């Protein structure tokens, strides 16, 4: 038996496929365009790093939703609750291990962050499995019912958070190592934001590897395009649906942890508050496209930061403007998925 991927089977003189560079070029183009308006290079670098960090956190929160929508055709308005739940799950770790965060040890500080992430992903993954079974599964195929039922699920779960942890905002403290900033000349970059960029990039690369280099990734990509044909090939798409929903919930939980440490305050509604941004980036990126979600997140966050600096009064509407402009240019989003 020979692996089909073997080089010997690949034909010579392949026609070239066109790579769509235009959406990718938007991010550097936007950053360069902003430079002369901002004036100071150090302020520009600080704003750009802050924008990238925010973009990565939005990506972490949104990537699961775009996958769930792409594969399962589910509009999950309850996605925000997994962000809140992930954020609150940090309390399970921060309570007993508060000393690790205060310790003057990079290892303990990073271990604490890692434990928070693992715990949050486990909790949101489990709750995601229950949410899919109890709330989402009965309404497959009906978008209106999905919106109503998942909104209901969100309200119920938010109230459950209130019941468990109380209705008052809860302050949390960043581990010592992640406090403060790197200062290079006039450039100031908050340490936590740099870490957030690193984690976001790692997750994006991991997802790209999973989607493009593994059979499960092939199945997800094929399922996004035509779930019925995936079943006709002999694969049980329902199991894939559940796995993707659980993974999407866990990713939202991870995003929730990062968002919580960024805000340093927990509220049950924090997930719901960020959902407008999340929906904007998955629409800009192209529903179901992880790459599009990544580019869309960075684009939205950079615009928010630059506009917030240059014209604070316009900051609130800047994301809507970006979405409108992108949809005028590409009505299906930056990287449309074939089925949609």
């Amino acid at each position, binding site marked *: *038996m*020979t*692996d*089909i*991927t*073997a080089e*010997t*089977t*690949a*034909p010579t*003189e*392949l*026609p070239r*496929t066109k790579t769509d560079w235009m959406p990718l070029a938007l991010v550097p183009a936007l950053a360069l365009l902003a430079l002369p308006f901002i004036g100071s290079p150090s302020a520009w670098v600080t704003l750009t790093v802050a924008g990238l960090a925010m973009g990565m956190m939005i990506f972490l929160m949104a990537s699961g939703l775009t996958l769930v929508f792409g594969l399962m055709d589910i509009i999950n308005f309850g996605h925000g609750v997994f962000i809140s739940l992930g954020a609150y799950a940090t309390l399970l770790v921060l309570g007993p291990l508060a000393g690790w965060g205060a310790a003057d040890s990079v290892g303990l500080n990073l271990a604490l962050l890692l434990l928070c992430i693992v715990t949050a992903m486990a909790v949101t993954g489990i709750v995601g499995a229950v949410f899919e079974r109890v709330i989402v599964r009965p309404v497959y195929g009906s978008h209106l019912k999905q919106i109503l039922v998942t909104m209901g699920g969100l309200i119920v779960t938010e109230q459950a958070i209130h019941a468990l942890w109380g209705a008052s905002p809860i302050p949390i403290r960043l581990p010592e190592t992640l406090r403060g900033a790197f200062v290079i000349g006039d450039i100031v970059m908050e340490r936590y934001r740099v870490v957030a960029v690193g984690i976001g990039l790692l997750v994006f690369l991991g997802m790209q590897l999973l989607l493009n280099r593994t*059979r499960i990734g*092939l*199945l997800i*990509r*094929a399922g*996004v*395009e*035509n779930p*019925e*044909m*995936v*079943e*006709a*090939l*002999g*694969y*049980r*798409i329902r199991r894939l649906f559940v796995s993707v929903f659980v993974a999407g919930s866990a990713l939202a939980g991870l995003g929730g942890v990062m968002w919580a440490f960024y805000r340093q305050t927990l509220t049950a509604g924090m997930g719901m508050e960020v959902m407008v941004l999340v929906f904007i980036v998955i629409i800009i990126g192209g529903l179901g496209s992880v790459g599009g979600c990544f580019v869309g997140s960075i684009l939205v966050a950079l615009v928010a930061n630059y506009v917030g600096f240059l014209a604070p009064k316009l900051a609130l509407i800047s994301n809507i403007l970006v979405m409108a402009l992108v949809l005028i240019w590409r009505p299906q989003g930056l990287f449309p*998925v*074939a089925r949609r």
Partner: protein
Amino acid sequence: MSEPLLRLQDVHTHIGPYHILHGVTCDIPAGQLTMLLGRNGAGKTTTLRTIMGLWRASSGSIRFDGRDITRCSTPSVAQGGIAYVPESMAIFTDLTVRENIVLAARSGPVDSARLDWMLGLFPALKRFWNLPAGNLSGGQKQMLAIARAIAEPRRLLLVDEPTKGLAPVMVRSMIEAFRALKEAGETILLVEQNFYAASALGDNVLVMDDGRIVHSGAMSDLVADQALQQRLLGLSLDAHQ
């Protein structure tokens, strides 16, 4: 006629409020190519989709290799050895040609001899091996859809109108490919509107009308009997040539 590999017995299918199949009864013998003919809306596609479990039979039975698959899920039917090529082809356009084939080979990598045989049947696929399948022409997409169905040995191929919308030269290529599949001993149930293609390929023929099988027999008998063609299909082979 040899022992049937697939047997449909009084199969009824409803889609929503519509009663589409009204008691389909037929046998598909192993190792032969059976053509399923009929006008648009006769129920040919519904028959294939019902066999695959994509639409559930409301009554009747479907037995494949002696096993009742009437209530089986689509993945179970496929795992039992039935491959399906829908009329829409349903190739994954965002995946490369290679990835489409890799996905179809459920049990692991395709062995090189089978791959060579497949690419020998459809040499055009070689040129686009590492390109998104969305770049293929209609005929090439059809080739990929059939290649995907035979990426692993299957007991039965269900193919829905493979020549629809193809240029004559591509229709001839398709006929040659199905001839080669016949010679390889594949069992095929082929829905076709093109009577010229059907007559060139079929060992047996089933004719459907209004959700029922109204004729079954040897293809050679239908080809030889123009009056029967006129009665069943409303045209004769001469009209197609």
